């Protein structure tokens, strides 16, 4: 029997819908759903989103590491042993010897349950890979505008008159969003792209600013310098809705375009042109992603962009906004659910957990903020974290300084990995639990524009694999917690009670309104919120804080031994650690091979021909791949897609505020492989 089930794309944070066609319960093909935020459009990853579901490599049975390698074990036994070990470690070393990595690839319900388990066990050591992508956004926006989310909707993009796209390459990472961007261009919007590489997004730019790696603040400050000097800022908005402008004037005073030119390498006249174009457009949106956030000054970078948007009055109005673009299908939701060490669901601070404790029926919750992912890895290395529970993450490939991560995992007394494939991380686990993939379970997911959508189940999981929420329910019960949820919908309803932004978002509504609801949604009859900050900001006094920041150079700069700068990026046909996309033939035949971009002049100096094998070496490791000689990248810079393990090279130095590693800048040298 043929069936069409409405699907939700498991890849990026765009939130695209499609149909999954099944025949006798087996997935057959993706069909077009003429609606949703994607308007029926799909990128190559969405088109191949069924390819990995029935792959032979799927994990189908719980596994336990023994002297003879991994052996199959029953669910009952696995959960019992894991729960006993967790409790034993907690009782012996205290709750803060436990760590939990939640997942931006799992549903809201699953993230909610995992953080609840962590907190009921007495620790806030729960985090997820937003730490590695938008942690600096969360910190930067919380301090400036009070809400760590995309302020407007995709629909605002075509209404803007200028788009400032900073460290963000949607042509590769959110292809369907390019539809909205090109529509803005059709409507006469100017496009300014800030990126050290001439990305595919930069093809469409009116102004491309290829800045030196890690000099973002100098550029943003110089743009604000011009806007203030030429009195192009929105005086009414600045005086009625923000505070801190006077301090900003003082800080950006010295950042003349000529001074910034020396730091950024961008000609002063181009900085002026970009600043004037941006400020005089009338309606503007700033979009950013990892090129901005993954720096030791990540939080400062975000504040600088927020300041820039605020002084131009580009927040809270049609065709304006601050748009941190979300990379994973539920990275917004995982943050909303409190899979973060300092906040409970709905961004309620752990230091003030009384309300949540009451709903959960417990006396108190741990009130000290917990550890972040890089800190948990470091503490595992030092032997202070003894047990780590990882749901749907692959830190061995996704985290910086791979060697250090592996050493840390080897130190653990207990490592549990819950995933759909035997990832590079799972290889180090004591227990591996087979999870259901997106099409094999139900639950809600929150896309980049705060849009919560229901994910319908289309097919059964393979063999004994189970939805993550069911696994967590079993684990919760085995840990002695009151986890008597009968269905995933029970969890969705509890989220509505706990997270104020989700108050009116019920499973019934989500299943009826399949195109979703944008939070905040304060009651069941509320239609959801397209735009944040319309009348006031989510700060205590309702005013946005303009917080000036000073430029600081990246942690590692080129020297004699490591004369090049290294940065990382992604390609459209692979996704992150390639656990899923790497198992699609249609994708791997087009995007199957690691490479590094190198400027023709540098290649000539090093005697490297296109397609030759090279070795890139940093202080942390070395990595071999083919050379791709291209003018897309500037002289002195090497660019590497990170899907194939390039994080052996990257720097694990952290932004002190958000604890995000500086993936985007390292010093390296390049050798020809003979």
């Amino acid at each position, binding site marked *: 029997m043929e069936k069409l089930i409405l699907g939700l794309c498991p890849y990026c944070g765009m939130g695209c819908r499609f149909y999954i066609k099944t025949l006798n319960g087996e997935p057959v093909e993706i069909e077009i759903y003429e609606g949703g935020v994607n308007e029926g459009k799909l990128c*190559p990853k969405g088109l191949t989103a069924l390819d990995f579901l029935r792959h032979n490599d799927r994990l189908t049975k719980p596994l336990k590491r023994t002297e003879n390698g991994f052996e199959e074990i029953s669910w009952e036994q696995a959960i019992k042993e894991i729960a006993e070990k967790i409790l034993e470690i907690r009782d012996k070393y205290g709750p803060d010897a436990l760590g939990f990595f939640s997942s931006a690839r799992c549903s809201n319900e699953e993230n909610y349950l995992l953080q609840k388990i962590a907190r009921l066990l007495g620790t806030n050591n729960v985090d997820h890979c937003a730490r590695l992508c938008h942690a600096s956004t969360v910190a930067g926006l919380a301090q400036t505008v009070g809400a760590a989310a995309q302020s407007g909707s995709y629909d605002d993009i075509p209404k803007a008159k200028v788009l400032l796209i900073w460290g963000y390459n949607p*042509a590769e990472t959110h292809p369907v969003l390019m539809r909205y961007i090109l529509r803005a261009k059709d409507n006469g919007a100017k496009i300014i792209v800030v990126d050290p590489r001439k990305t595919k997004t930069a093809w469409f730019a009116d102004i491309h600013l290829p800045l030196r790696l890690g000099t973002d603040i100098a550029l943003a400050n110089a743009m604000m310098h011009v806007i203030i000097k030429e009195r192009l800022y929105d005086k009414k908005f600045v005086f009625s809705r923000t505070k801190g402008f006077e301090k900003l004037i003082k800080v950006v005073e010295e950042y003349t375009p000529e001074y910034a030119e020396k730091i950024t390498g961008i000609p002063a006249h181009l900085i002026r042109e970009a600043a004037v174009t941006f400020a005089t457009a009338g309606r503007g949106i700033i979009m950013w992603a990892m090129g901005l956030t993954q720096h030791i000054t990540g939080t400062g970078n975000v504040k600088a962009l927020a300041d820039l948007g605020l002084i131009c009055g580009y927040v809270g109005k049609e065709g304006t906004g601050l748009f941190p673009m979300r990379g994973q299908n539920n990275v917004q939701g995982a943050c909303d659910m409190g899979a973060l060490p300092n906040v409970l669901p709905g961004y309620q601070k752990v230091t003030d957990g009384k309300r949540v404790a009451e709903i959960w029926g417990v006396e108190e919750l741990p009130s000290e903020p917990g550890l972040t992912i890089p800190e948990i890895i470091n503490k595992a290395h030092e032997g202070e974290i003894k047990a780590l529970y990882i749901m749907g993450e692959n830190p061995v490939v996704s985290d910086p300084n791979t060697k250090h991560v592996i050493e840390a995992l080897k130190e653990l007394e207990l490592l549990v990995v819950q995933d759909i494939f035997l990832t590079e991380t799972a290889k180090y686990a004591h227990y591996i639990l087979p999870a259901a993939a997106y099409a094999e379970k139900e639950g809600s997911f929150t896309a980049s524009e705060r849009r919560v959508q229901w994910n319908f189940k289309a097919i059964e999981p393979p063999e004994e694999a189970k939805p993550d929420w069911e696994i967590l329910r079993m684990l919760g019960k085995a840990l002695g917690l009151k986890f008597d949820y009968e269905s995933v919908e029970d969890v969705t309803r509890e989220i509505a009670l706990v997270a104020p932004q989700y108050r009116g978002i019920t499973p019934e509504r989500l299943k009826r309104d399949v195109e979703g609801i944008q939070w905040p949604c304060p009651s069941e009859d509320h239609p959801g919120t397209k735009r944040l900050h319309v009348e006031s900001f989510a700060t205590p006094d309702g005013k946005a804080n303009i917080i000036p920041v000073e430029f600081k150079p990246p942690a590692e700069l080129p020297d004699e031994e490591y004369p090049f700068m290294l940065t990382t990026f992604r390609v459209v046909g692979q996704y992150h650690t390639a656990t899923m996309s790497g198992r699609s033939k*249609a994708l791997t035949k087009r995007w199957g091979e690691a490479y590094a971009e190198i400027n023709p002049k540098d290649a000539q100096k090093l005697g490297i021909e296109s397609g030759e094998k090279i070795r890139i070496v940093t202080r942390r490791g070395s990595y071999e791949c083919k050379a791709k000689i291209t003018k897309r990248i500037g002289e002195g810079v090497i660019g590497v897609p990170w899907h194939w393990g390039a994080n052996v090279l990257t720097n694990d130095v952290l932004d002190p505020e958000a604890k995000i590693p500086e993936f985007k800048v390292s010093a390296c040298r390049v050798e020809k492989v003979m």
Partner: protein
Amino acid sequence: MKLFINLGRCIACKACEVACEKEHGISFISVYEFEDMAVPLNCRHCEKAPCIEVCPTNAIKRDGDGAVIINEEKCIGCYMCSAVCPYAIPIVDPIKELAVKCNLCADRRKEGNLPLCASVCPTDALVFGEINEIMEEKRKRKAERIVEAQRKAIEKIALFG
């Protein structure tokens, strides 16, 4: 009806290639990427199609929507169509060893659907429709831009004299 290439809108995401491969087993559309732009290329379904003219067995015909179709029953695999094609389109089907190319998703069109490449293309770099209608739409946008520029110029004169 034509599959029109909106030059300058392709982001080289290759959704068309992947979609075509899913639909037909082989991709009949190829995206060529350069340092500053990309172009998707498939059968142009020419009005005066040299392939139709040259085919010795009359295996190539035009259907009701204007699509140029190779009838595999009649094809003898001489590849004269490939030889004369101005865009080097017809290729060898690896299984049947006969000439194959894009048929604008004949099966999908029968059910009232668009060719899959045009259906999925995220940026409308590929659109399926009447050329005159597509051009009219594009022309209107150009006119809007001209008016916008003119209005700005008038505003400036009003402000600064």
